[in-house]
C-alpha cells in the first residue's frame, strides 16, 4: 500500500510539474508582450520597460518559470526599493488589471466556485443515483421509462439553454423559484440568501450531471446484479432488500465515486458557463473575463489550478477505490 501511494504521489507531482510547464510555456510564447499588457492606455515605452524588468519578463524563459515555481512555495517580491510589492506564498503572479496578487483574488473567488460545485454535487448525486437505483430496481416498468426520458433531456440540453430557461422563465417570468441578485453571502451568515443565490446554478448543473449519473448507476447496478455472488446471496435466502443494500450497492456504486470526484474536480476549475449565465463572480467567470482582457497571470494561475485539482482528485480517487472496492488489491 505504501509503495503504491508513494509511487502515485511521485507520478502526480511529475504530471503537475509537466502540466504547469506546458501551460507556462504556451502562454509565454504567445505573440504579444506581457509587459505591454500591464499598463493598458497609460503605456509608454518607459513604463513597459520598467514593468518588464519588475515582473522578470526580461529574463530567459526557464528562469521566468523557475521564479514562478519558486514564488508558489516561497512568495515573490516584484521590483526593488520603495516601489517593490510582495505577494506571500503561494504566489501565482500579480494581476495589473486589479492591482492585486493573483492569490488574493483567488481567495475571493474560490468560496463562490466551491459553493456552486458542492451544492450541485450533492443535488446531482441524490437525484442521479436515486433515479438510477429506481430505474434498475424497476427495470422495464414505468420508473425506468420515466428516468430514461429524464436522461435523454439531461444529456441533450446544453447547460446554457437549461440555465437561461430557468433564469428567464422559471425564475423571472413565472416566479416559481426565487432568486437573489444581492451578491455573495456566506452560508453561515445568511443561509436563506445563500440558497436563493445558488439554487438555480445548482439545478442547472445538477440537471446535466444527474442524467449521466442516472444512466451510469442503472447500468452499473444491472451489471452487478448479474454477478455470480448476487446469485449466491439470493440462493442462500437473503431478502431482496439485503441483496441490494449489502451486496449490490457497494460494488455498483464504487465507480460512481470515481466519476463524481473527477466531475467535481472539473467544476472547481470553473463552471464557466453556469457562472457566466448567473453572473456569479467565481473562478470560471474570472477566467473568462481574464481571457477577454488578456490578463495572463490570472489565466496561467487558473489553468494550472484547474489541472492541479483534477490530478490531485485522480490521486485521491485511486486510493479511495482501493478502500471501496474489495476486488481491487494494491
Amino acid at each position: 500500500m505504501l509503495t503504491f501511494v508513494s509511487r502515485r504521489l511521485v507520478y502526480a507531482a511529475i504530471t503537475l510539474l509537466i502540466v504547469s510547464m506546458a501551460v507556462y510555456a504556451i502562454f509565454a510564447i504567445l505573440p504579444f508582450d506581457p509587459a505591454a499588457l500591464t499598463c493598458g492606455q497609460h503605456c509608454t515605452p518607459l513604463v513597459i520597460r520598467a514593468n518588464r524588468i519588475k515582473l522578470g519578463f526580461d529574463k530567459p524563459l526557464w528562469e521566468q518559470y523557475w521564479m514562478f515555481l519558486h514564488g508558489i512555495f516561497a512568495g515573490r517580491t516584484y521590483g526593488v526599493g520603495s516601489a517593490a510589492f510582495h505577494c506571500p506564498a503561494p504566489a501565482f503572479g500579480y494581476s495589473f488589471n486589479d492591482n492585486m496578487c493573483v492569490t488574493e483574488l483567488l481567495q475571493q473567488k474560490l468560496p463562490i466556485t466551491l459553493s456552486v460545485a458542492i451544492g450541485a454535487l450533492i443535488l446531482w448525486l441524490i437525484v442521479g443515483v436515486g433515479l438510477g437505483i429506481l430505474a434498475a430496481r424497476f427495470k422495464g416498468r414505468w420508473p425506468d421509462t420515466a428516468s430514461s426520458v429524464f436522461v435523454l433531456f439531461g444529456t441533450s440540453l446544453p447547460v446554457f439553454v437549461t440555465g437561461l430557461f430557468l433564469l428567464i422563465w422559471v425564475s423571472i417570468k413565472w416566479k416559481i423559484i426565487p432568486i437573489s441578485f444581492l451578491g455573495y453571502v456566506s452560508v453561515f451568515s445568511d443561509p436563506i440568501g445563500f440558497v436563493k443565490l445558488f439554487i438555480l446554478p445548482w439545478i442547472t448543473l445538477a440537471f446535466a450531471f444527474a442524467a449521466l449519473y442516472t444512466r451510469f448507476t442503472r447500468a452499473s447496478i444491472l451489471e452487478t446484479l448479474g454477478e455470480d455472488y448476487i446469485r449466491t446471496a439470493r440462493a442462500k435466502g437473503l431478502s431482496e432488500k439485503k441483496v441490494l443494500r449489502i451486496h449490490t450497492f457497494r460494488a455498483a456504486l464504487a465507480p460512481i465515486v470515481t466519476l463524481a470526484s473527477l466531475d467535481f474536480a472539473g467544476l472547481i476549475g470553473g463552471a464557466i458557463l453556469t457562472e457566466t449565465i448567473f453572473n456569479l463572480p467565481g473562478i470560471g467567470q474570472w477566467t473568462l473575463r481574464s481571457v477577454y482582457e488578456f490578463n495572463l497571470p490570472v489565466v496561467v494561475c487558473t489553468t494550472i489550478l484547474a489541472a492541479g485539482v483534477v490530478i490531485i482528485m485522480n490521486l485521491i480517487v485511486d486510493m479511495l477505490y482501493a478502500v471501496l472496492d474489495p476486488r481491487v488489491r494494491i
Partner: protein
Amino acid sequence: MAVKIRKSRELSSSRASTGPIVGRSPKQIAWTRFKRNKVGVVSAIISVGVIVLSLLAPIVTRIIGVDPNTLHLDVLDVTGVPTLPHAGISMAHPLGLIPGTGRDLLAQLLYGSRISFMVAILTTSLTLFIGLVLGIVGGYFRGRVDAVLGRITDFLLSFPAFFMIVALSTPMVDRIQQTGIAKGNGARIVFLVFFLSFFGWPYFSRLIRSQAMSLRERDFVTAAQAMGSSNRRIIFRELLPNLWAPVIVFVSLSLPGYLAAESVFSFLGLGIQPPASTWGILLSNATRFVTTMPQFFIIVAGSLVLVVLAFNLTGDALRDALDPRNDR
C-alpha cells in the same frame, strides 16, 4: 456471440416459415434490430434530413423563398424587435425575423447550420482518425509503444479540456493567423477543430485500444498471422472491419456533442464571430432579446435541442442494434 446468432436465425426462420433457411450476417442482424426501433428510425431520418438540408441550404432557401441576407429594418421598432404580429412569423417568414437586423430566421438557421455542422463533422473525423490509428497501434502492437501512448492519454485526460480551450482561444487564434494558415473565422474554425480533437481523441482511442487488444487474441487473427500476413494486412483486413460498430456509435454520439460544443464557444464569444452565422451566434444573439422577443430564443434553442436529441437517439439505437449481447 455465435449462440445469439443461431438464436436469432431460429427466430427469423420460424417467422418466415416458407423458403429455405438463409444465414444472416451480423450486419443484417443489426439492421433488422435497428429497423424495429421506431424511435431510432425516426431520429435517424431527422438527423440525416437536417444534414442534407444544411448542405443544400442555398437551394432550400430559394425553394421556400427566403433569403438570409435581406434586411427588413422597416418593420423593426427602436429596440430592434419586429413590430409585426407573432414576432414576424408569417407565410413569407416561416420562423419569423431576427431582431436587430430583421433577417429571415429560417434562412439564417439553415445557413448557420453549415458552419456548425462543418465544425462538428471535421472534429469528429479528426478525433476518429487519431483515436483509431493510435488505439489500434497501442492495442495491436502492445509493448513500449502502448505504454508511451497510455501515458500520453492519461496526461491529456487529466487536463480540464473545456477550460484549456477557453483559456487558449484568443492567443492561439492569433497564433494561427500569424502563421498564415487561415484568417479570421477560418482561424477560429481551425482552432476549435484542432483543440476539440486534441482533447477528444484519448476517450475514443482507449475504447478502440481495448477492442483491438481483444481482437488480436481471436482465432482469425492468429490464423492470419500463421499464414504469414503482414501487420498491415492484419490491421486493414482483419481488425478494421471488426471495429466498425464502435466507430458508428462514436460518430453518431460525438457529432451532437461537438455541435453543442461549437454553440457553447460561440455563446461565450470565443468561437466563430459575426457576421458569419452559426447556431451558437444565433443563440447568443437570441439571449440579448430573450425578454423582449422570447420566440427567437425558443426557436433557436429548440432547433439545437431537437437536432442534438435526434442524433443522440440515433446513436443509442445504433448502439443497441450493434451490441451482440442484446437479445431483443
